[in-house]
């Protein structure tokens, strides 16, 4: 039994390694076959041998950062409310509902975004089309929320009761205690929550493909957020099904996968290192 569990545990690590090796094997040729000027150029026309991945990378980054900018205040505020302010009965209702939120399939959110949010974004912000980076960010923010709320709430939960008591005893109001004592004490946990939410947002595909317009333009300038973009994930999903196996285009799509993998890995590493620091300091921060 013990051996079995050990084998199963190692095999899942083995699978991750194999997937990574496969990704490298299929994707590395792209970096060798295509000159860097083309590969990191600004024009993505794969059918005409223009493989500029820059618009895709920037598109993913823009939509992810905007999504986090929206979901961070909302998520932390919700976590504070659920953990610190809400009466017990409300907490009992809210917590499972937040978990249900995480279970909504992304294609459903994408359809919702395409038919309801996109027209609203176009009318409210006067953009030429509602299929924009901002629309995608709204959907992604909604998808990252459950992760951020649960992890941030756990972090608040880990703050010892003595901190709150000390704050109140010194004459601080409940709000002062929450914002000046409890939330700062849970800071590293909240950073982890944001990092995990970010990892969720950057890897999301279906909803993004449906609402961001998929135009591979460079998202530069102040209005870029209200213009269409094309993300790395949507590009892989849209083009992989039809590409000839072994062609340059095929290798480039895996190359984009490697870039995406490296980005997500960096984000997760940051999240893990924050958690590691917290553990070293003895669990309080």
């Amino acid at each position: 039994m013990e051996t079995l569990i050990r084998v199963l545990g190692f095999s899942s690590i083995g699978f991750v390694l194999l997937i990574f090796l496969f990704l490298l094997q299929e994707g590395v040729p792209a970096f060798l076959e295509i000159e860097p000027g083309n590969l990191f150029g600004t024009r993505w026309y794969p059918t005409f041998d223009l493989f500029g991945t820059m618009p895709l990378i920037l598109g993913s980054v823009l939509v992810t950062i905007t999504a986090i900018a929206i979901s961070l205040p909302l998520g932390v505020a919700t976590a504070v409310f659920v953990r610190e302010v809400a009466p017990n009965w409300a907490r009992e209702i809210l917590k499972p509902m937040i978990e249900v939120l995480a279970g909504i399939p992304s294609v459903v959110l994408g359809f919702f975004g395409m038919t309801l949010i996109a027209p609203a974004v176009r009318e409210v912000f006067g953009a030429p089309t509602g299929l924009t980076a901002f629309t995608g960010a709204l959907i992604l923010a909604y998808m990252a929320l459950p992760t951020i709320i649960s992890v941030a709430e756990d972090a608040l939960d880990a703050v010892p009761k003595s901190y709150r008591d000390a704050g109140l005893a010194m004459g601080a109001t409940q709000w002062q205690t929450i914002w000046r004592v409890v939330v700062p004490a849970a800071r590293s946990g909240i950073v982890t929550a944001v990092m995990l939410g970010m990892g969720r947002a950057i890897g999301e595909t279906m909803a993004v493909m449906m609402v961001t317009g998929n135009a591979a333009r460079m998202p530069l300038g102040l209005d870029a957020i209200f213009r269409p973009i094309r993300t790395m994930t949507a590009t892989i999903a849209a083009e992989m099904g039809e590409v000839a196996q072994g062609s340059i285009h095929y290798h480039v799509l895996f190359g984009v996968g490697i870039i995406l993998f490296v980005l997500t890995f960096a984000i997760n590493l940051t999240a893990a290192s924050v958690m590691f620091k917290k553990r070293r300091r003895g669990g309080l921060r």
Partner: protein
Amino acid sequence: MRTTRIVLVMAVLLAAVPLCGCRPAQSSGGAVQTGSTIQQKGSDTLVNLALAWAEEYMRLHPEVRLSVTGGGSGTGIAAMINGTADIADASREMKPEEVAAAEANGITPVEFVVARDAIAVVVNPSNPVDTLTIQQISDIYTGKTTNWQQVGGEDRPIVLLSRESNSGTYVYFLENVVRMGQKDSDMLFSPDTLLMPSSEGISAEVRQNPNAIGYDGLGYVTPDQKVLAVARDAASPHVLPSAGTVNDGSYPISRPLYMYTAGQPSGDVKAYLDWVLGGGQYLVSKLGFVPLTE
């Protein structure tokens, strides 16, 4: 295309299951059946239509087996020339060098136009623009024209919608409309073009956005989009796409879809092609193409 092909193979296999089941019973009855299989290969544009025809024909004639594969017009024509396919599906005419290769192999290819593919240019119903020339559409899609005012509409930005770059419609539209059929042109879609993963994506955006312009196969256009009349050039009349204008060639953005056989077809192949050109035409419009007759 890989997934589609797997689905095709599965569909053909499934369709073949009942045949396998009843064949031994027939042959034991004395009448020896050779069980002819018609091999069909070629254009990915045509593959779904070819499959629909094959399935329906096998339902009507259980004694005939048809196998349909995609791979592209060139692949299909090459297979027809070297004898591994009975019928080549093609979304373009055979090139002179392909005809020469066939003749060198002792084959005279015979051409059949089996359906037509027309691309409709669509806008939101509230857009006052009714007509465009190919030149104007090309300028819009390359990003030279960016406001509807420049083509006689309201003062609104133009939002460009296109199918994904792997779609056959994308390539056809690029070569014949954006590049206006000039072979040496290297014009491309503007980077601002929104690439929609499906026909539904295009129609949803056209339906709700008065700035949008899109294109798609005529059969996929829903009534809540406004179809534009298109003129070949400034001197030509503007023509709305319909079965009539597509078949008489007056609508400029359309192309015939072909099947080629090695020499005059006979036997099962001839019977099948006769049915495709006659009784099978009703399936054409279901798949978004234009039938030869109304």
